[in-house]
């Protein structure tokens, strides 16, 4: 099944390989010891640690080994952190020069986004759209983007019924400013493997109080049509608060 983004898939495969190595190591050890050292005959056992009731038994330790399996996992996690760092930077890219997606597009400018071998998308500029969550429906707003770049509508999906539809253009990158009108919601773009909560309260109070959450939606060449689900529990009809993302050329 390749419904996930290659960024996710890359990380996933990497972690799976490490996981398999760790599991093989651990389980070989576990199975070997639990068979090899099983008790053959419960009488003739020489009790090397002097186990007796009311006596703290002899220490059974080996400093070198213990340090070894303190240091080894530590090195492993440092490495895993390092591996996860660039993808993190990519999905949480900042705006502006130093980010992956540059500044906001001028009128008529195209993002022209590129997908590299690690699944990281870079673009020349990005478009801003707005996603609003409310109980229990998504509202997509293209703001002042042309319908060629972004369009909304509705569609019918089995189980979920009529759902709002967001149509985005392939090759363009979007930054969704997200808001909520009642409680916390979170759109999960199933095929892109991203989600972020929409928090109610974004526009309350004076300027300093603004903190809309944002979500990068780079519609790279690998992104296809997908379901959008709500993944922050929001009440009664939470499970059918769905949407659909359609990618057009």
């Amino acid at each position, binding site marked *: 099944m390749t419904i996930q983004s290659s960024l996710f898939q890359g990380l996933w495969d990497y972690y799976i390989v490490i996981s398999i190595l760790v599991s093989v190591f651990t389980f070989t050890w576990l199975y070997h010891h639990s068979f090899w050292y099983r008790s053959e005959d419960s009488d003739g056992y020489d009790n090397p640690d002097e186990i007796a009731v009311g006596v703290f038994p002899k220490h059974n330790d080996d400093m070198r080994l213990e340090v070894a399996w303190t240091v080894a996992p530590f090195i492993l996690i440092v490495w895993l952190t390092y591996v996860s*760092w*660039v993808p993190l*930077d990519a*999905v*949480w*890219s*900042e*705006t502006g020069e*130093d*980010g992956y997606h540059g500044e906001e597009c001028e009128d008529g400018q195209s993002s022209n986004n590129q997908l590299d071998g690690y699944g990281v998308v870079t673009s020349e500029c990005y478009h801003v759209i707005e996603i609003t969550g409310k109980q229990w429906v998504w509202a997509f707003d293209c703001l002042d983007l042309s319908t060629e770049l972004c369009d909304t509508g509705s569609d019918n999906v089995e189980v979920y019924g009529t759902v709002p539809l967001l149509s985005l253009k392939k090759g363009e990158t979007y*930054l969704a400013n997200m808001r909520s009108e009642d409680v916390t919601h979170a759109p999960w773009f199933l095929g892109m493997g991203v989600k*972020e909560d929409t*928090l109610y309260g974004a526009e309350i109070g004076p300027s300093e109080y603004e*903190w*809309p*959450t*944002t979500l990068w939606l780079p519609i790279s060449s690998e992104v296809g049509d997908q379901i959008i689900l709500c993944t922050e529990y929001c009440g009664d009809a939470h499970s059918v608060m769905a949407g659909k993302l359609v990618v057009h050329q």
Partner: protein
Amino acid sequence: MNFIGLMVLTLIEVVAVGFHLPDERIFVFSNYTLMILTVIAIPKFIMIALIFMHLYGEEDSGILTVTALFPSFFIIIMILFIGLTHPEATTGLPAWCRPGTY
């Protein structure tokens, strides 16, 4: 002694605030007042803990002080993580958390 000290410190607190009483002007609290209040709260706190709560001068004071200070780490964590952070968009992840910086 301790008792009198505490009374005096509290008096200073109230007076310090009193000096900044708005009279009829719009009320402005300077950070100066906050500073005085914090500075006075610390010795008061210590005086009560050490003398009234016997964390000083008794046979068991040492170990009980350690017990009383035990939660400090967890208190600091809570204040840092809960008291002093605020929601923000992920685009605001600071540069020092990003790989390019190093």
